């Protein structure tokens, strides 16, 4: 496969995951606002800006903030930019993906472009959930059903789960840092539920631990749960599996180093114990995870995409 094509596929995966994540955060925040004091809501919006590593310039009124994060094409973190970037990458590899995938992505993009801020403001859930989240989920379903599960598919998956692992780690880091995150902290019930909902994990958490919300359990669930597709561990498993598949597809020993890095991340999550992690400091642990993800990303590029010519003459 052409390196440029792999690059585009990887970023389709990342951009769509990122867009879905932002849409979900907005959706959760807007609905929690209805139950919270203005001061608590303001804190939540500030935290959200930290999650997204983005700063709103100006007075952070909710309407203006939401507009900047949805329809502002000049803001690279906005939903419209994310879906547009995914579509632009897909357009460049149209002959590699299935027509059904292209048509679905195109459809979501056109729907987003057609919606105005005022329409969205009237029914934010309709737009964020039905148009965006479901649109992206449908794209992922179509991908699984219509695309051969070969190298192409693995590049998409690699992008998707890299993004998920990093975004979830950041989410946990910021949340625990700001709320103190001491064990059994029950004071801010709604915020902790919000965190779970931001990862589509509230119901899944309840299935495992009942509706008894405890920060330590939340950390365990979002970090180390082997079965939840939203956990960092699950994402790391998928990253390792896709790297394994890509490396064996491209033969040679060039993939060894990046396979080792992915395996190390996987192992640290597979064998991690939440009590030890909390005792040693969650923040430090999460920083290591993010660092490892970054290393994997860099090495994937060095190995498969932007390698120096001299090392790759075959």
């Amino acid at each position, binding site marked *: *496969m*052409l*390196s*440029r094509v*792999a690059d585009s596929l990887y970023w389709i995966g990342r951009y769509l995951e990122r867009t879905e994540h932002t849409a979900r955060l907005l959706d959760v925040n807007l609905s929690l606002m209805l139950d919270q004091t203005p001061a608590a809501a303001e804190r939540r919006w500030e935290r959200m800006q930290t999650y997204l590593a983005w700063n709103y310039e100006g007075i952070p009124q909710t309407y203006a903030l939401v507009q900047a994060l949805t329809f502002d094409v000049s803001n690279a973190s906005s939903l419209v930019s994310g879906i547009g970037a995914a579509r*632009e990458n897909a*357009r*460049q590899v*149209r*002959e590699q993906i299935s*027509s059904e995938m*292209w*048509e679905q992505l*195109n459809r979501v993009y056109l729907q987003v472009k057609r919606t105005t801020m005022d329409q969205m403001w009237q029914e934010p859930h309709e737009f964020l959930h039905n148009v965006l989240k479901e649109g992206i989920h449908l794209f992922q379903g179509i991908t699984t059903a219509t695309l051969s599960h070969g*190298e192409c598919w693995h590049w998409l998956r690699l992008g998707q789960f890299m993004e998920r692992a990093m975004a979830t780690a950041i989410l946990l880091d910021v949340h625990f840092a700001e709320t103190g995150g001491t064990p059994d902290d029950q004071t801010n019930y709604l915020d902790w539920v919000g965190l779970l909902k931001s990862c589509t994990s509230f119901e899944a958490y309840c299935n495992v631990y009942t509706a008894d919300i405890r920060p330590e359990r939340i950390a365990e669930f979002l970090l180390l749960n082997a079965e939840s597709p939203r956990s960092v561990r699950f994402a790391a498993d998928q990253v390792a599996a896709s790297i394994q598949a*890509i490396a064996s*597809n*491209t*033969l*040679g020993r*060039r993939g060894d180093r990046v396979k080792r890095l992915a395996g190390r991340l996987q192992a640290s999550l597979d064998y991690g114990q939440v009590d030890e992690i909390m005792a040693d400091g969650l923040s430090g642990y999460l920083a290591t995870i993010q660092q490892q993800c970054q290393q994997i990303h860099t090495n994937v590029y060095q190995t*498969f*995409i932007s*390698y120096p*010519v001299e090392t*790759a*003459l*075959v």
Partner: protein
Amino acid sequence: MPDVAPFRQYQLETAYDELFLGPNTPRPHYRLLSERLRELPPDELARRQQAADLAFLNQGITFTVYGRDEGTERIFPYDLLPRLLTAKEWDTIERGLAQRVTALNLFLRDIYHEETILKAGVVPRELVYSCRHFSRQMRGVSVPRDRYVSIVGTDLIRLPSGQFAVLEDNLRVPSGVSYMLANRLVMKRVFPQLFSSYGVRSIDHYGQALLATLRSLAPQGRSDPTIVLLTPGVFNSAYYEHTFLARQMGVELVEGRDLIVHDNVVYMRTTAGLRRVDVIYRRVDDEFIDPLAFRPDSVLGVAGLLNAYRAGNVALANALGTGVADDKAIYAYVPAMIKFYLDEDPILPNVETFLLSDDRQRQHVLNNLDSLVVKAVGESGGYDMLIGPHSTIEQRSQFRDRIIANPRNYIAQPTLALSKAPCFIDGKLESRHVDLRPYILFGDQISIVPGGLTRVALRRGSLVVNSSQGGGSKDTWVLY
């Protein structure tokens, strides 16, 4: 005037009509089609046109219009009624094109090597050297099998006499073949019964034929060549066609940044390392293809490609420097080339052409600008062109100045009545001017898929069929 329902407003004029022999009398091979049209309920045509348009939109068969931002992807207007060609008409076209492409290849080889035709004084030397597309870099370079042009799209028009003539040779990167294939696909869906009762020659093998042509150009000793299609990228107006052809042939679609030249060998950057490339079907113009040899500001090309090409390590289709032979002033000499190289008379005639570098011809043209068509020699796509009878005094005086300032840059031709064919426009059948662009492949041998792109000037009375200037297209049926 035909007074039967769908043709009520159909006008017959001096131009050759593809369908009608005379009022109410269709040509024999069109009889079935016109009967079918009369039988159809009034709204049926409109319904089928909608179905066809939707099919194009859903498949994303679009082209890009330059000069505007987002929302610039448009569908190529498609007319529902097929244009028919009899076996006899096609036979003449096929033989004529084969003869012409053979001679043009010999000419290109000649002017970059021995120059016999220049020495013999058949084609003026200064005309060749002053051509913008003449490429000094190609002097003495031998190209695989001496195939300079392997992929050609020649524009034919039908004169009032019914005879086909060549209007233009497109020897650089002719486009539109994907529309020919897409038109056929949609047509089979929209008019299956009519299609099967006619017996139409198939064009479906074009992708395979193109692949075989490219394969035949592979450098010596590369028995299983890697073939790629080089596109300028997603912003090119023909990007859809590039993805379509790559998929039809099963080859990689590459951009300049995917290719690397190392020790005069071309590689593409893949996730499994560098892979050697043997044949490049390039859809990038000469001047952008290698920033080291041509325009240094090009980001679409591959640095060092020309040297790899000169070393014989990679084949390009078409070769570089072929634009010299589709220069509109050189065009005037193609009949002489055919005589010179093949000792044959041209089967398809040229259109009378005035060379403005000649004093007497220029004076004649300047005196008759209101009845002539003036074209820039190196342009395509219907740009920089004056159609005398449809022009204003101001436009004519502009062109007068331009011609006097740079006579070599222009030619003039009589305003020709292109043949007309019925088109479905705003719920009625009306006649519109059409041309025909068949696609010629030249690898081991010459092969021409039976048919081509019939382009339609959709504006009433217009003679300009280019898609960039509001043209559309029709499916073209070559009958057995």
